C-alpha cells in the first residue's frame, strides 16, 4: 500500500465528523464519500486521492456505531487508517469490512500531511518516504487478519457457512 498522508492529530475525531448523521438517509459508498470529513475539513474530499492514508490521534472513530463512517472514508479513496488508538465499534467495523485499522501509538505527531507512506501489513511497518524513516505498528491480531484476508466478515461467513 502506498499513498499520501492526511493527518488529523487531534484525539476523539468522532463518527459525526467523519460522516454527519444528516447523510445517513443514504447507504451507498459513493454517495457517502462526497461528504467524508465534511464538518471538520471541507477540503478533504477535494484533496484525497485513491490509495491515501488517514493518520490520526487517539480514540479515532468514537461515537455512533454507523459503519457509514468506514464506507465514506473507503469510498473517498482512503485505503487504511493509522491512529494512536481506535474507538471500539469503529475498529470492529473496519475489521469486519476487511479495511486496515492500524494502531501506532505516538504516530499523530510524527507524520505530516502530504508525506508519502508505504504500509506493509505483514511486516507491521510503515515507511515514510518523505522523511526517510520507518515506524513499527502493533501487529493486527490474527483473528482480525483472517477477516481482512477473507475480504470481510460476511465473505468469511459465506465461505465457511458459519461464524
Amino acid at each position, binding site marked *: 500500500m502506498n499513498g499520501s498522508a492526511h493527518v488529523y492529530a487531534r484525539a476523539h475525531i468522532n463518527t459525526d465528523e467523519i460522516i454527519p*448523521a444528516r447523510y*445517513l438517509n443514504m447507504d451507498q459508498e459513493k454517495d457517502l464519500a462526497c461528504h467524508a470529513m465534511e464538518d*471538520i475539513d471541507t477540503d478533504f474530499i477535494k484533496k484525497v486521492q485513491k490509495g491515501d492514508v488517514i493518520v490520526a490521534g487517539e*480514540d479515532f472513530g468514537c*461515537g455512533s456505531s454507523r*459503519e457509514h463512517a468506514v464506507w465514506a472514508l473507503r469510498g473517498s479513496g482512503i485505503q487504511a487508517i493509522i491512529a494512536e488508538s481506535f474507538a471500539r465499534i469503529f475498529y470492529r467495523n473496519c475489521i469486519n469490512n476487511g479495511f486496515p485499522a492500524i494502531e501506532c501509538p505516538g504516530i499523530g505527531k510524527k507524520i505530516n500531511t502530504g508525506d508519502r507512506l508505504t504500509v506493509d501489513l505483514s511486516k507491521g511497518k510503515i515507511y515514510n518516504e518523505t522523511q526517510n524513516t520507518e515506524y513499527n505498528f502493533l501487529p493486527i491480531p490474527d483473528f482480525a487478519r483472517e477477516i481482512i484476508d477473507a475480504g470481510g*466478515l*460476511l465473505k468469511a461467513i*459465506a465461505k465457511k457457512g458459519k*461464524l
Partner: protein
Amino acid sequence: MGSTITEKILALHAGRDTVKPGELINAGIDVIMCHDVTTTPAIDMMKANGDLHVAYPERVVIMPDHFVPNKDIKSAEMVAKIRRWAKEEKIDKFYDIGRHGVCHALLPEQGHVRPGTTIVCGDSHTCTHGALGAFATGIGSTDLAAALATGELWFKVPESILFRINGALPKGVYAKDVILYIISQIGVDGALYKAMEFTGDVIDFLSVESRMTLCNMAIEAGAKTGIINPDETTLEYVRAHSNEHFDVFHSDPDAEYSQIIDIDVTNLEPMVALPHLPSNGKPVSQAGNIPIDQAWLGSCTNGRIEDLRKAAAVMRGNKVAKGVRMIVVPATTQIWKQASREGLLDIFMEAGATVSAPTCGACLGGHMGILAAGERCISSTNRNFIGRMGSPESEVYLASPATVAASALEGKIANPTTYKQD
C-alpha cells in the same frame, strides 16, 4: 477468582463455564434489534454474500426510529425496504408508526429486555439495556448482518470497571448528572473497550428508567457496555413487561476489576456538558451566563415518562422565555399517551413548548429541531459533537430534563434546584 456479571453472561452464551477478559469468543445472541439507519446495508450485504437469510426470525425486533415519521423520500425508501425484507424473512416483531418509539426506550417497554440475555443493535446506545442486567452492546451493519445470518457474534471479553456510587442525591440532581460527572472525570475514552458496572447505595435507590440513563451513556466513555446487577427493582420491572423466562446473574464478591472507582454524590450539583464533547461536564453553577435558542427534551437517554414528569414539575405554571424554542419529544407512543393522560403535555404546551411524535429526530441532526449556524441548544440527549444537532457552527449543551426545563424558562443555562421537583 470469581467472575463479573458480564463474564458470566458471555460464558453462558459461548457454551463455556467461565471466560476471562481478553479472550475471543463466539457468543449466541438472544435479541437482535434493527432500526432504520443501519439495517438496510445489512440486508444488502446478506443478499450479496451468498443470499444469506435470517437464522432465527423470532429473535429479531424491528424498530425504525431515527428519521421517523419519515423525514424525506430517501428515509421513506429505507423503511419501505426494511418492511419488505421483514415480510420475506417472516419477522413479526415490527413496531411501525402508531406503536413506534426510540428503540432503546421501546425495547424494554415492550418486554424484549430480560436479565442474563445478550442483545445487539446497530446503534451505539444499545448499552442502555445493561440497566436490566443484560449484556447489550452496539455494533455496525456488518456485525448486524452476521448476527442475523448466524445468531452469533465474535466478542473480545471486556475487562470491567466497577463504579461504586454512594451518598444521597441532592434535590434536583439526577442520574444524568451522575453520568455526566463520571464522564467528566474519566474522559470520552476512559472506559474504552471495557464494561462499566455500576453499584452502590445510589443505584439501589434509582428507578429502572434512571438506571437506563446511566447505562445509556456508557458509550460516551468509550465502553463496550454499561451494566447493573439485577435486584428487586429490576425483577419487578421485567415481570411487569414480559412473561418470558430469564436467568439472573450477579457479579461474585471476588470478581476481578481492572479499576474500582468510588463516587460520593452527596455534594453533586446539576451538570452541563459544554460543546463539543460529553466529557466537558461542569456544574451548572460554574457554567457562566450562556443564553440559549432552543431546549430539546427527549431521546433514548432522557425521553421516558419519568423524564417528562421531572421537566413538567419545573415548568408547571411557568412560561418558556421569549425567543426560546422548546421541543418535547416523548420517546415512545406509550410514553406519549401516558404523558397525555397525566396532563404533562398540557403543561408543556401551556408553557409555550411544542410536542412532537416519538423520534430520534434532532438528537442526531435528523429532523424536528435542527439548529442554524450560531445557535445554542440545551438538550437532554447524549452527544454534543460538532454538528450533532445541525449546523457545524451550532452548539449543543447536555443536561438533565430538569435542567433543560429550567433553562427553557430562563432563556439561558439555568440551575433547576430552585424550582419545584417531581
